């Protein structure tokens, strides 16, 4: 089975139907913060974003979605696909993660690999002794760099999968049978571990201890990041569990841990924020539309935009140390696309 066939079949295996669900952190731009007061053709509209990404992909030589799923071609992993299939009909988050990985490819979820490739190309061929000289270069990118891009995606996907574990003692009857969640947890842990093991093997093959150290440190930082994110959202989220089921797009839910919301809360102070949440509740259900309006009226959104632009400028500054090239321009375009809000 080649990659294309696998990808055609996967959504079916995963029981996907209807419109894809989006993960909160994906750069999909019909979220609450890109509609409403912003006028005109939003350059964060999907069409523009896709254009930026597909041009970038031409520069690096191939589409970069599904990079982390390529290891699914091993026999071993057809096992995982089958196991995940058993989760269809349950409410385990792993199913959402898996669907998201496949379905959101049109929004080029797997940006990290693409960015690694672009940086590789922008940096240009090595001069001097670098170990890369033993590797082939295609489209201006060494095969070891391509491998690194894939490893980056693997690590990221592994953590994504591990984030989908559920705490068994917090389950409610609406979540379905305990054994489904236990099984889902099992598969999520093993799949994540498998992806990490593949990443480690890939790193070992690069025969570069410094690179191993860097990526292992990155993983350590990522894990701590995930942990902190879970912790801060734990308090408020646990109160709101009954409300966080998907709604219609009119009152689409948003992540209470996202930057605008967190910053909004910081400006307000915790007590006022809790008050706003209570006011947005009707008959025990949270009205996200109402809460959204409150947030937009505050300073959280604008300071989040400022923060985003600050980081964007830092990234652009860093890019200046590369010689001008197509790859560098593509990276700049990505920064522009991500930081424009009007």
């Amino acid at each position, binding site marked *: 089975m080649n990659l294309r066939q696998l990808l055609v079949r996967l959504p079916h295996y995963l029981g996907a139907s209807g419109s894809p669900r989006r993960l909160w952190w994906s750069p999909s731009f019909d979220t609450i913060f890109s509609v409403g007061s912003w006028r005109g053709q939003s350059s964060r509209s999907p069409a523009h974003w896709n254009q930026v990404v597909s041009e970038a992909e031409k520069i690096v030589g191939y589409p970069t979605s599904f990079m982390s799923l390529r290891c699914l071609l091993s026999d*071993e992993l057809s*096992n995982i696909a089958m*196991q995940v299939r058993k989760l269809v009909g349950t409410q385990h988050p792993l199913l959402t993660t898996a669907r998201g990985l496949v379905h959101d490819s049109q929004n080029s979820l797997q940006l990290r690999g693409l960015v690694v490739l672009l940086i590789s190309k922008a940096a240009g061929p090595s001069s001097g002794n670098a170990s890369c000289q033993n590797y082939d270069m295609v489209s201006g990118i060494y095969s070891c760099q391509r491998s690194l891009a894939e490893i980056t995606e693997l690590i990221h996907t592994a*953590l994504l999968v*591990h*984030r989908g*574990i*559920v*705490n*068994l*003692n*917090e389950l409610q009857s609406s979540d379905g049978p305990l054994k489904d969640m*236990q099984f889902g*947890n*099992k598969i999520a*842990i*093993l799949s*994540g*571990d*498998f992806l*990490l*093991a*593949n990443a*480690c*093997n890939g*790193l*070992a*093959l690069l*025969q*570069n*201890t*410094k690179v*191993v*150290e860097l990526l*292992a*440190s990155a*993983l*350590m930082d990522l*894990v*701590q990041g*995930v*942990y*902190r994110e*879970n*912790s801060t959202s734990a308090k408020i989220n646990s109160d709101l569990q009954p409300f966080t089921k998907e709604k219609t797009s009119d009152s689409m839910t948003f992540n209470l841990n996202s930057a605008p919301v967190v910053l909004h809360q910081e400006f307000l102070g915790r007590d006022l924020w809790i008050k706003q949440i209570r006011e947005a509740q009707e008959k025990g259900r949270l009205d996200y539309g109402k809460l959204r309006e409150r947030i937009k009226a505050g300073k959280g959104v604008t300071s989040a935009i400022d923060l985003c632009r600050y980081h964007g400028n830092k990234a652009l500054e860093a890019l200046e140390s590369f010689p001008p090239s197509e790859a560098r321009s593509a990276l700049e375009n990505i920064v522009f696309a991500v930081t424009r809000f009007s």
Partner: protein
Amino acid sequence: GRLRWEHWLRPGVWDQPEQHSKIPYFNLVKHLTSACPNVYSISRFHHTTPDSKTRSGEKYTDPFKLGWRDLKGLYEDIRKELLISTSELKEMSEYYFDGKGKAFRPIIVALMARACNIHHNNSRHVQASQRAIALIAEMIHTASLVHDDVIDDASSRRGKHTVNKIWGEKKAVLAGDLILSAASIALARIGNTTVISILTQVIEDLVRGEFLQLGSKENENERFAHYLEKTFKKTASLIANSCKAVSVLGCPDPVVHEIAYQYGKNIGIAFQLIDDVLDFTSCSDQMGKPTSADLKLGLATGPVLFACQQFPEMNAMIMRRFSLPGDVDRARQYVLQSDGVQQTTYLAQQYCHEAVREISKLRPSPERDALIQLSEIVLTRDK
């Protein structure tokens, strides 16, 4: 008959999976054990032996004490690798590095390092990089335990509550990832790409071993091969490859690397086989975890597979993974009535003998002899 046993102990046999199903295991074991009825009785000798002379002519002490000489501060050093800013995550990650574990793996690694160094050039010095392998092995092992406990929904380990029961499954999985990444950083800092390759193989084997455990085989002979392969991947691979890694760091001779690997592999398998026996023969106080744990997880280990030869009615229970009420107790009874325990122990003995045969090829030293003595301890331990 004898030749067939040796087939399983040859290096590289794991690479030929198609061979597995061709060997009628149980007939072999039956034949051998009926020929040697006295092998069942293994003399129990206690952990602390009086000092006595060994083949090398030098006095030796308890192998654990000997190994610990190079491992002082092991747990403190591991905790230093866990540079974590959040206090709860740090607490979780350090939870099992409390100095109360057996540290079996680090001790083997430390002893092997010395044995190889002495063999190579009579050096009595253990390199920092070799000591680092001891830490890394223990960290990788612990990370896998943390994940296994979530997978198995285990409540206790080493006499205390598991990480998943105290902090929940989500955080436990992250803690395992953290320990693994810390181990990888330490591994990278050794600066040896061969050693990195050797130990990343372990990480892959651990995962594949868990996957093997999820699946099952219909055919009896396939089941046993499957069981041994899982045993290698989940337990022996880490020990074999850590031994190989320290030998690579200490000595350039590939013959020595292979000896170290074979010792580790054989003793690792023996260790797990005895662990599986103890799940039937010991009581929960001694083990620090409840017994019949394997049956309750639906796992058919050595004693069960052997018992099934005598009691074919166990087949149905094995296939449904002891999921019906009463299955666990019935299976346990069958095992205790059968010679499953003895046969598994005998098999463990064979692996130990192979380990000893290999390590005896090294130059005599107190550490080499300690490794030999360790194999005896593996067989006779009661927890």
